[in-house]
């Protein structure tokens, strides 16, 4: 079964109440009207009858002529509402009658009239028609006629009453009027009720509309449309207005809560993504380090295999050949010796690099003269430079005290000059310079530094290789001309320079030569600051020495 809507319920209730009220009011007013009409009828008939009696008594009494009596009675019958008239004398003999129906009998002896002194009865004829009948006495006394005159006629000498008049009023006439009134009243009531219901319907619809809208909005909210609001009835100053406002504020709060939750959720997701990303990064880094390690191991094994291959090959050749020329034999043994040296150098370099990188290298930090260190390195390499007819020149104007491990710094300089000698062609040129600068190097850290430059006129290095040459075992597109390098020299040099707080880099023009640079920090120049700084450095170095030892 279909539910009844609020509008329908309200209208139905109103209709029931209004109908009941209307019916009651109609019934009441009809009964009131009925009484009123009845009274009016009675009064009119009584008045007409009395008028007639007053006007005609004398003539009735005096004449007694039946023709005259008939005429008089007929005259009364023509008055409004009067159905029949009967005139009786004192002895109840009918003197005259007009329009009397046959079989007229008394139905009710007395019905109350508005005036107590007049006598009303209810009558019925043979055909079943009903009448109200008024009985009025005709007497000389009531006419204003002189009693003497009555006496004169004898008729009323002893009895003042001459006879009586019965006047019938057709009850149907009365009922017709009443019915018409009742109908009119019922129609009016029906019109009133339907107007009221129509108004009620319109009002109910107006009241219910916001509720209907709220229902729709609630549906929208249920499916997630939290920005839905109800516009109708927002300004109503009644319960529905309150409901609409409460509904809207509930929707607003829901929406705010959802937005807040969404925000929290997206923040959470963001955080999860961030963490995932970090984990991925860490994982990538680990993978990268792992890859680096395995690359390094295969690099090292390759680098060790190369001299080992020569040693093995030449040793076997020497073993298998009984008739080698003495010069060839000597040369093969030389190669074996060189390659064995290369292997031990490689191993020593690897161990050194590992120590520096893992922080277990022992650094013998001290105040030392950089000029002396450079001179020593140059002296060691002068013979091999001379072998290739390379001019090795030093431009070092003065002594320069630095806080450094002199052996390691000498190793750096030896590496750089040695590389120059290795790659320069015969008759080349190498120059070492030293100068004080106020920035560290490519990173441009301000401060006091000394910069050492090793310049050659060798083949130069491609731009894309300038950083890679400092990587371990990086060979690039050039072959080590004498095969003596470990592939670790520049990597070790970089570690040493970085450990001292300097930078190492290079410039090069392909085909014209390369310049390698490295810087070492200098202590601040002036008194107290210098002392403090020295003390701090000594402390640092002591600590490092202890760790190293």
């Amino acid at each position, binding site marked *: 079964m279909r539910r009844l809507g609020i509008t329908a319920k309200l209208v139905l209730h109103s209709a029931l109440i209004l109908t009941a009220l209307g019916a009651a009011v109609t019934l009441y007013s009809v009964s009131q009207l009925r009484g009123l009409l009845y009274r009016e009828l009675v009064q009119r008939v009584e008045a007409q009858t009395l008028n007639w009696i007053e006007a005609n008594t004398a003539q009735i009494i005096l004449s007694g002529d039946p023709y005259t009596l008939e005429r008089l009675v007929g005259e009364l019958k023509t008055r409004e509402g009067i159905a029949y008239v009967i005139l009786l004398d004192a002895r109840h003999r009918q003197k005259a009658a007009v329009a009397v129906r046959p079989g007229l009998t008394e139905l009710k002896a007395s019905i109350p009239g508005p005036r107590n002194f007049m006598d009303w009865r209810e009558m019925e004829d043979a055909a079943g028609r009903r009448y109200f009948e008024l009985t009025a006495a005709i007497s000389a006394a009531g006419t204003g006629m002189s009693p003497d005159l009555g006496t004169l006629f004898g008729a009323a000498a002893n009895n003042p009453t001459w006879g009586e008049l019965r006047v019938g009023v057709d009850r149907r006439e009365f009922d017709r009027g009443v019915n018409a009134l009742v109908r009119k009243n019922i129609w009016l009531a029906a019109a009133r009720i339907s107007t009221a219901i129509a108004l009620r319907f319109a009002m109910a619809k107006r009241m219910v509309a916001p509720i209907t809208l709220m229902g729709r909005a609630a549906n929208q909210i249920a499916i997630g449309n939290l920005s839905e609001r109800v516009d109708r009835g927002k300004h109503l100053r009644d319960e529905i207005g309150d409901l609409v406002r409460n509904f809207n504020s509930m929707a607003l709060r829901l929406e705010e809560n959802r937005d807040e939750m969404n925000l929290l959720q997206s923040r959470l997701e963001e955080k999860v993504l961030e963490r995932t990303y970090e984990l991925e990064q860490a994982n990538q880094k680990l993978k990268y380090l792992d890859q680096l390690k395995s690359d390094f191991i295969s690099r090292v094994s390759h680098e060790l295999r190369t001299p080992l291959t020569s040693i093995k090959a030449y040793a*076997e050749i020497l073993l298998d050949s009984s008739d080698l020329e003495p010069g060839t034999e000597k040369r093969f043994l030389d190669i074996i010796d060189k390659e064995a040296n290369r292997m031990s150098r490689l191993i020593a370099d690897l161990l050194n690099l590992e120590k520096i990188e893992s922080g277990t290298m022992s650094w013998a930090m001290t105040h030392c003269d950089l000029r002396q260190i450079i001179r020593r390195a140059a002296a060691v390499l002068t013979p091999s430079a001379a072998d290739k007819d390379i001019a090795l020149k030093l431009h070092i104007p003065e002594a320069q005290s630095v806080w450094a491990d002199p052996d390691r710094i000498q190793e750096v300089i030896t590496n750089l000059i040695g590389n120059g000698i290795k790659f320069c062609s015969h008759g080349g040129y190498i120059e070492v310079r030293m100068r004080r600068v106020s920035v560290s190097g490519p990173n441009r850290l301000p401060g006091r530094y000394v910069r050492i430059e090793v310049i050659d006129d060798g083949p130069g290095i491609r731009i894309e290789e300038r950083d890679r040459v400092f990587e371990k075992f990086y060979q690039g597109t050039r*072959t080590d001309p004498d095969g003596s390098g470990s592939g670790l020299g520049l990597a070790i040099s970089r570690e040493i320079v970085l450990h001292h707080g300097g930078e190492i880099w290079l410039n090069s023009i392909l085909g014209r030569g390369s310049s390698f640079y490295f810087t070492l920090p200098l202590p601040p120049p002036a008194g107290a600051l210098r002392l403090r700084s020295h003390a701090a450095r000594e402390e640092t170095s002591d600590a490092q020495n202890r760790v190293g030892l």
Partner: protein
Amino acid sequence: MPKTVLVCDDEPYILESVGYVVREEGYNVLMADNGEDALRLAQSESPDAMILDISMPTKDGTLICRELKAGPSTRGIYIIVLTAKGQERDMQESFRAGADEFITKPFSPRHLRRRLHELLD
């Protein structure tokens, strides 16, 4: 007419030792110390066999293998890869590139001599 063997290696001492062994066995020796020279010599001289290092400057040994095996006139050269890269995947990569034989460093000259005779005589 003696057979010709092309030897390619960027390590001078290894190049010299392999060349020495091949020559001692009575074959003609061609030598290259980088990939581009090796490819050029292989194409112009059409050697009977080739002893090829993998990691070399200017051109990788694997690439040389692939190019020679793709050329109609060089397809017949017997390629022995001689490399310090001794891992399984290095070997498979070489074979995929068309190498006929794979020897790891350090190598035995005695073994190399025997293989050359088996192949070329």
